[in-house]
């Protein structure tokens, strides 16, 4: 599914109806729940490859830094405040 999200048409299909998209790619119920909840930390812990996950981030409007903050267990703002150049987004 993540590989498919490299196509604009598939990203649109996912945005229109993510349940149908996930069913089409035969995700397990556990996998679907992680995506429904936008649980990026959980997806990584379940073994998803980080670069595959970035495609889901793109299709769901979650930037790398937002997903990263969640994986760190911090708010987006708290994460940015840990950077050497806080405004370089």
């Amino acid at each position, binding site marked *: 599914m*993540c590989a498919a999200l490299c196509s604009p048409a598939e990203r649109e299909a996912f945005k229109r109806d993510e349940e149908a998209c996930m069913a089409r790619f035969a995700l397990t119920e556990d996998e679907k729940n992680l995506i429904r909840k936008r649980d990026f*930390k959980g997806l990584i*812990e379940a073994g998803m490859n980080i670069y595959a996950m*970035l*495609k889901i981030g793109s299709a769901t409007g979650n930037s790398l830094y937002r997903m*990263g903050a969640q994986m760190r267990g911090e708010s987006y703002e708290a994460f940015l405040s840990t*950077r050497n150049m806080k405004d*370089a987004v």
Partner: protein
Amino acid sequence: MPSRIVGGVGLSHVPSVGPAIDRKREQDPAWKPLFDAYVPVREWLRKRKPDVAIVVYNDHVAEFTFDKYPTFALGAAERYAIADEGFGTRPLPAVPGDAEFSIHLCEQLVEAEFDLTVCQEMGVEHGFLVPMNLCFPHHASDWPVKSVPLQVNVVQHPLPTARRCFNLGRALRRAVESYPGDLNVVVLGTGGMSHQLQGKRFGFMNEKFDQWFLDELEKNPEGLASLSHHKIMEEAGAEAVELIMWLTMRGALSPGAKRVHRHYYAPMTTGMGLITFED
């Protein structure tokens, strides 16, 4: 006339550089230190009069997916399309290749007992494009050099070892030098430097390791070739294992190649390194 390697560059391929260029943000305060560092590098590259850039890089689950994943893949096409890796296709012209040169490299490397996946069709994404943007900026509809993409698996274990990557570089040098096309060749080793994107250590960087790596790359690349993936990942972050691709570049240069430029900048989530060698 035989061909020759005239220079090598080690550089990060951070994806956000692409949009920064496309949106003309190179002079923004956060970006300026990075882009300024490349001005003398591009001038130096122009003076080397390169015909072809061999770009050692990794795809990020865009062109290659886990149903079938090559350890080493070499492009052997006349042109490489700009791939959509999930964020849209950047407005760049397709990248010209040199299929005859690529095929020569494939033949020599396989004979040298490196097992390559030969790609007669291949799209390229940020791992390849960002270094090209920085070193060989494109014109409206073309690029100033031809390219040979050399893709290395650094994203899904098991990965080739650092030593394997270094030895591939050495074999690459011999393969280039046996090509009778009188080509000036530059090798780019891309990726890194320290960074981690997955899990709790997202955002981890280690400047001390990165500076040490730059020192060793110049003076003791054999030592770096002995590094385990585990050691690199522990010290510099899981995704820093991309640095083994810099060893392919270094292996393709003579041991005494002269280091010319060196720069380091780590504003956000990656230690962005830059090092050049003349040969």
